[in-house]
């Protein structure tokens, strides 16, 4: 988790610092793209199911894994039946749009918003059934977003930097995913894999329970390379997660940002979705997560 912390909030600054230092030292640390021949593995079903208690349309995406150097969007899995079972055996059907997306509009039979309920995902594909359970955990409201103007420093540009203010629920172990946006788009338009995750108010639980989110996390909502300018909108979505999904996203961040001096051996990420028949040969990739969502936004004004 600490390595995650390093790779998230400091990777840009720190990596830059280290590379500049080495570059200065040896004039030469470098990265080059090379050709490698990889073995090909068979294709597997991938379920990308992040569902929230929001009143907007919810999307679950099904695709197939492909050759590593496909260099194109992975193929969609279109002939599946996707549904979520809620309280009182209410079934929420997700309808295929024939491009791999399965949609549910909460305006039809209501949002999936029973806090504390273990929602169950069911996917029927190619003669097999896959299931997963995810508890919808509560999420704190975001009190505010503050702004401050900062001068240029090593690794960070001059501009307006924002922080979000929210307090973790005391007395329970919580996991969160913080999504940050600039003018409606993710703050990092190039690389969206540096997820901001937290356990209670920090990056490791216990002592951070009940606190306001700690500084490195609060401040992570600004992209140091492209901070805000007057008139920009800084917005934040705070999503609640459960432990398994938090672990999945942690591993996702590590695997998608592996490299350089501190790389870890690539490893497969364990999915929380299982073949219902218990047959472990039919491995499925991906994750199912039920989240409660809270939002806030702030337009930058001149200081």
């Amino acid at each position, binding site marked *: *988790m*600490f*390595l995650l912390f390093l790779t998230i909030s400091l990777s840009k600054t720190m990596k830059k*610092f280290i590379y500049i*230092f080495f570059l*200065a*030292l*040896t004039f*030469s*640390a*470098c990265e*080059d*793209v090379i*050709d490698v021949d990889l*073995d090909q*593995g*068979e294709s*597997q079903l991938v379920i*990308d199911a992040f569902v929230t208690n929001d009143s907007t349309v919810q999307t679950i995406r099904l*695709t197939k*894994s*492909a050759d*590593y150097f*496909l*260099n194109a*969007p*992975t193929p969609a899995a279109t002939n599946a039946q996707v549904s979520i079972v809620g309280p009182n055996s209410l079934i929420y059907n997700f309808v295929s749009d024939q491009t791999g997306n399965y949609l549910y509009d909460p305006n039809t039979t209501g949002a999936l918003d029973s806090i504390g309920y273990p929602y169950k995902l069911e996917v029927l594909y190619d003669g097999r059934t896959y299931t997963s359970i995810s508890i919808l955990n509560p999420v704190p409201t975001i009190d505010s977003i503050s702004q401050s103007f900062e001068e240029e*420093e*090593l*690794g960070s540009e001059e501009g307006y930097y924002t922080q979000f*203010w929210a307090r973790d629920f005391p007395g329970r172990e919580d996991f969160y995913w913080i999504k940050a946006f600039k003018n409606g788009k993710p703050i990092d338009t*190039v690389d*969206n*894999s540096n997820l901001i995750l937290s356990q209670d108010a*920090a*990056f*490791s639980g216990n*002592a*951070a329970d009940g*606190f*306001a*989110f700690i*500084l*490195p996390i609060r401040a992570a909502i600004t992209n140091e390379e492209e901070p805000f300018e007057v008139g920009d909108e800084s917005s934040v979505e705070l999503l609640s997660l459960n432990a398994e999904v938090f672990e999945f996203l*942690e591993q*996702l961040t590590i*695997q*998608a940002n*592996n*490299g350089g*001096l*501190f*790389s*870890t*051996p*690539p490893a*497969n990420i*364990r999915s929380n979705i299982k073949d219902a028949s218990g047959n472990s040969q039919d491995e499925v*990739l991906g*994750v199912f997560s039920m989240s409660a969502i809270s939002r806030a936004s702030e337009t930058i004004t001149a200081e």
Partner: protein
Amino acid sequence: MKKIQLLLPFLFISFLLQAQEKYTISGYVKSASTGEELIGATVAARAISVGTSANVYGFYSLTLEKGTYEITYSFIGYEEITKNIVLDDNKQLNVELAEQVNELEVVEIDGERDEANIKSVEMSVNKIDSKTIKKIPALLGEADVVKSILLLPGVSTVGEGSTGFNVRGGGIDQNLVLLDEAPVYNSSHLFGFFSVFNPDAVKNVKLIKGGIAPEYGGRLSSILDIRMKEGNKKEFTGSGGVGAIFSRLSLEGPIKKDKASFLIAGRRSYADILARPFLNDNLSGSRFYFYDLTAKVNYEIDPKNRLFLSGYFGRDVFGSGFLFNWGNATGTARWNHIFNDKLFMNLTAFYSDYDYAFGVEGDGEDDFDWSSSIVSYSVKPDFSYYINNNNTLKFGGQSIYYNFKPAVAEFISDGQTNSLSLPEKFGIENGLYIQNERQIGSRISLLYGIRWSHFAFLGEGAKQVYRDTIPGIRKDLESSTEFDQNEVIADYNNFEPRLSIKYDVDEFSSVKASFNRMSQYLHLISNTVASTPVDLWLPTTNNLEPQIADQVAVGYFRNFSKNKYEASVELFAKDFQNQIDYIDNADIFFNEQLEGDLLSGDGRAFGIELFVKKRTGPLTGWVSYTLSRSERQVEGINRGDWYPTRFDRTHNLSVVGSYEYNPKWSFSANFVYSSGTPATFPTNRYEIQGVILPHNIDQARNNYRIPAYHRLDISATLTPQNREDKKIKGEWVFSVYNVYNRRNPFSIFFDQNENNPQVTEAIRFAVVGSFVPAVSYNFTF
């Protein structure tokens, strides 16, 4: 009557003694110009082919039958002295040898007696002295102890920028690095670019890869025994240099001539000082420097007692807005005591603190600080009993008390302070050993003995028990029981037999064989491809068992042309138990239940090492080639099949040469080639939330090999010939590292293309991607 009276005591005495009386001559062998002890100096009665060598403190003891002898004292690079001795009683004789005037034909590259390669029972040992270390062309012109040993057979690393080194298939935590008897946990500065040892202060470096004697214990794969100089006892001298990275200065001199002396040696990087004027205001708060400082004092209380006090401090600091800070500090006291001509003792006590810290520089309302450390205290008595010419007995022990603080963190968020910490861990490691080095006849030498080692995992602390599950999945904590301070939570015992045999085939060649069992009670937990300074050291616990290794080695050693060339071929095979590995995506940091992410398995390594060295003449150097394999088998990784370790390098070749062209110019070069290290590559990709992820359908580990590593370095040393009486002598060193610009891959990783995220690429990361020239200036006075 009187005659009988005289006869009786005589008979009585001779009844007590051996049939022939034996006496012992003992003392110290030192350098005439500096008073430094000459480690391994030879003391021999050549006429009867009997001799001994001085120990690491310069002490020797030679037992001969009563009589008159010519005893020769010699040490490579020094003029030998022969003394005519009438041995009719035990004698103490300290001898000082004068350094040889440097003639072109006699340029030594190691401080060993000529035929030590074949005659000594030691095998799998390499020694390098300070002069050799300084001659080897190095990165940015900074001569380096650890980089020099990488050129020896059986030694490798995973690449520039990795701390530590690998010996005969062992991990980087399996080397016991000793600096004047005190262990060093992290032997590098700046992620492995430079070692923490100042070459100006180093006297002797010995690397033991196999046939490890019972006096050493605690790590599985090697002992790197580094001895620093004690300090010139005759006159005040100094040396230093200005290099591309470090500036160095060492001062030594007598406190009381011939009785007490001191040595202070320090180095500091100065890139930050140079850069400061160029940094703008916001960056001026950034810091990046590293330093090391050694300070030693020694005092000869009387001919039988000497006292040594030393301290070592090294630190790396770097950051801007955040701060990384790590370092070693050790304080050591040693006492040499001579009980009698045959019994020598060294008693060492040390305190060591290895710590690393990280913080974000906040404003009081918001702040974050994290640190981790290992503190250890130890007592180590070692006795040498020189029974007779044919038997040298050594015995002793060591006790080390450890206090591990894996993580102590404090953070202030919006004015609220709290601490996050992982519980401290405590342990005590003990060892007792006895060994005898025995000469049988004129051809066979034997070193045999046993070490008993013990480790107790102590409270205060918790005994965690984990629920078994499918190997490869995180284990859940089933129970945690608290223990009080110094209560034993778990303990282990191991007996480690050691045996080495040498057989002289003829005057110029010998065959050697050895067996050793080693155990290790400290473990380095690292999930990254190369280790980082923030890797975690953990003690053996009820879940983490001691690591054990058995090694068998066999070798043939031969010298040519009257010891001008030294050659050897050695084969080794090692078997490892309880090797630690991690589940996929293990959580190493700040994880109170880390042991649930660890897996235990077996390891094996085997190989053949070829070594040829030219020792004298204007052209000297060596060629070393190792062919080896190092693998692991762990349930839960690679589907339980054997897989190569991260540091497995099939071929490893080093060619080192040095040419003394004339007194003014000398040139050196080295070429290294090694096979690429293994890496884990994916087979498939998939997308989650717009992020492309790799997947390996076979759950393979280390299924690929990255391209080979090779590099050529050269250097030239200019020693201006000044008037003899000029006090300051200097030399210029010009070096080029990586002459033909090879971009040696340190790792290959996979990432999305910056401009086109749909495209994934294999990216080769090279730490040094071009040739690196440097100039440095060294001086002595």
